């Protein structure tokens, strides 16, 4: 492996466990190789890939700077990188875990504030009356700034917060917060409520490519191998195969189902998992049966959408 593709995965916490579970569901596993502290690993099942274990925040930075080729981290952290981040990274697949919303939350006692336009007015009043700007505690500076600008809120100040942001209003160090929440319970416990139009980002973990990284040599081929496995597994989760004894009456029913999105298989059909019942019923109603539905382990399509997107965007 002279020029390996580098994949960065979270090195700790809940996100690390979720990524490991997801990889093993795809039939891949990490085997730690480098160093006694175990911050390097190999991906068993796909050759040409070196795994680097980093914190979620460092993964966002490494992707942005092109120090790694692929990485798994939260979209909230990627969006916090300065400038036009979409010119430097490419989101390849939303992974369905690590969900969190970046929200604007104000004290519940502000019963006159329900929306961003209320906030705009209150901020203006506060500045006009006291000469002070409303303080917003957050560590998400870039997203707060652009979201507030989009809503015309200008009379505010950000106070940077390292941790326990949601406690800032109670502590008196800010009037409101912009923070990550999964259930909203922590915000409520701190006497805060989320504004009706105050959801800045619905974030989740994303498999992401760096467009700045060096993609020469065998790296694109390694990325394609990995992406094909991942996509095949994701497609398998969404589909089912139907099989039945050959029947002379099946043609019109099968054609209708194909028109509806199913695809033909040697002994039957591949359908979306959500349509198993409906498709089987259409067959049995025509007297065809018994219909056996089974779930495939992998569905490899001829093309691979995320790989094609990546191919179009990277410089070699």
């Amino acid at each position: 492996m002279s020029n390996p593709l580098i994949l960065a995965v979270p090195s700790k916490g809940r996100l690390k466990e979720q990524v490991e579970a997801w990889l093993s569901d795809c039939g891949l596993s990490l085997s730690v190789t480098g160093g006694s502290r175990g911050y390097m690993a190999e991906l068993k099942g796909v050759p040409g890939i070196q795994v680097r274990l980093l914190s979620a925040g460092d993964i966002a930075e490494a992707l942005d700077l092109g120090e790694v080729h692929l990485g798994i981290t939260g979209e909230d952290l990627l969006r916090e990188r300065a400038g036009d981040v979409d010119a430097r990274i490419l989101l390849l697949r939303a992974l369905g875990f690590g969900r969190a919303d970046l929200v604007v939350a104000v004290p519940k006692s502000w019963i006159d504030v329900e929306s961003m336009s209320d906030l705009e007015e209150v901020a203006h009043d506060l500045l006009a009356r006291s000469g002070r700007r409303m303080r917003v505690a957050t560590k998400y500076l870039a997203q707060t700034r652009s979201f507030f600008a989009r809503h015309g809120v200008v009379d505010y100040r950000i106070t940077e917060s390292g941790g326990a942001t949601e406690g800032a209003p109670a502590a008196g160090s800010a009037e409101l917060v912009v923070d990550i929440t999964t259930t909203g319970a922590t915000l409520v416990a701190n006497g805060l409520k989320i504004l009706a139009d105050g959801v800045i980002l619905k974030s989740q973990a994303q498999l992401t490519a760096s467009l700045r990284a060096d993609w020469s040599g065998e790296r694109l081929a390694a990325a394609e191998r990995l992406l094909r496995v991942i996509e095949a597994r994701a497609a398998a989760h969404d589909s089912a195969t139907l099989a039945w004894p050959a029947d002379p009456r099946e043609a019109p029913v099968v054609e209708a189902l194909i028109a509806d999105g199913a695809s033909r298989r040697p002994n039957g059909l591949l359908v979306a998992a959500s349509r198993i019942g409906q498709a089987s019923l259409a067959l049995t109603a025509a007297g065809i049966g018994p219909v056996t539905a089974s779930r495939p382990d992998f569905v490899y399509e001829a093309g691979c959408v995320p790989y094609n997107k990546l191919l179009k965007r990277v410089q070699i």
Partner: protein
Amino acid sequence: MRAEPNLPPEALAAIRAPFLATGAEPVDAPILQPLALILELAGEAMRARLFVVQAEGGQETCLRPDFTVPVVRQHLDSGKLAGRYVYEGKAFRASPDADRPEEFRQIGLERFDDAAAPVAPADAEIAALAWTAALAGGRDDLSLWLGDIALFAAFIDDQGLAPSLAARLKRVAARPRLLAAELARAGAEPETQADSGKLAGLLSGLSEAEAATVLEEVWALAGIDPVGGRGPAAIAQRLIRRAQAASAPALTLEQADSITRFLAVDDAPQAAFAAIRAVAGAKAPALDGALSDWTQRLDLLAQAGVPLERTRFATALGHAFDYYDGLTFEVRSAALHPDRAVAVGGRYDGLPARLGGAPGARAVGCMVRPWRAWTGGES
């Protein structure tokens, strides 16, 4: 950090000469400015453009993005009511745009007067100075763009709108998205009262102290622990104002149309003022007062040697720094994009008071970018 090239000393001296001829007191400003103060005055949108510097354990500072705030502070520290200060040096603003210098030279002048001083002569002096200095750079394609933040307020005052609506329009004048939303709402029916509207109705009949007590009871009933810097009285008052604003009529379609036409005015000054007058309708006392000041400003500009055929008036001319509150102007070169003005300036009477000065004082200033003014410079 991308630094602007230096221009030849004789070219720089020519641009500097009109500033020195004013006899204003030369001042300098520390390159490091307190970050919190700059953000407090210029707003959070400025943060992306600041170079933030911090020594270990020290206060957060930024490289000066301009000279206005430090010069105002020096003036206030001097304790004098009136003063004129000239400065020259590098200012620093970060830019994602790869061909825009982030370290650049400015020469400027800030003029302070007491509350009794007439504004038009001071405005004309500063705008004429910016024009003369810019012209000394040698470009023959310059034009002087004039605007007036206070004109919109006068125009709105004459429209006979509900106070809450008038206040809102003045506030959003410089924010295109909010203004568009307000104009789009024109002709709409007043909103029906929500639950908070009913509470507002109850509160509006009470004294301020009683309203605050009722609100505290509402919090207690709802199990809400008040946090954050706003007290019950402030929240009760705003609930009342919000309910009044919601039940007040929106703009009529005619009013929205005249606001749109007002903000679209962009013409030679006399033609622009005629257009503004036509939009405003028969009775416009506030606007008439503001426009007669402009007749005087134009006369004074012409006397100071500014060719009026190279001036333009645009009602929408605004600035990134939101502390201008009267005259605004820009000297633009036809060879440079409009957002790369050769010189800018304006009146900012409100800023000294926000920095602790006496209310009512007058302040106006301008700044020229020599590298943009010089014919051999920015292209």
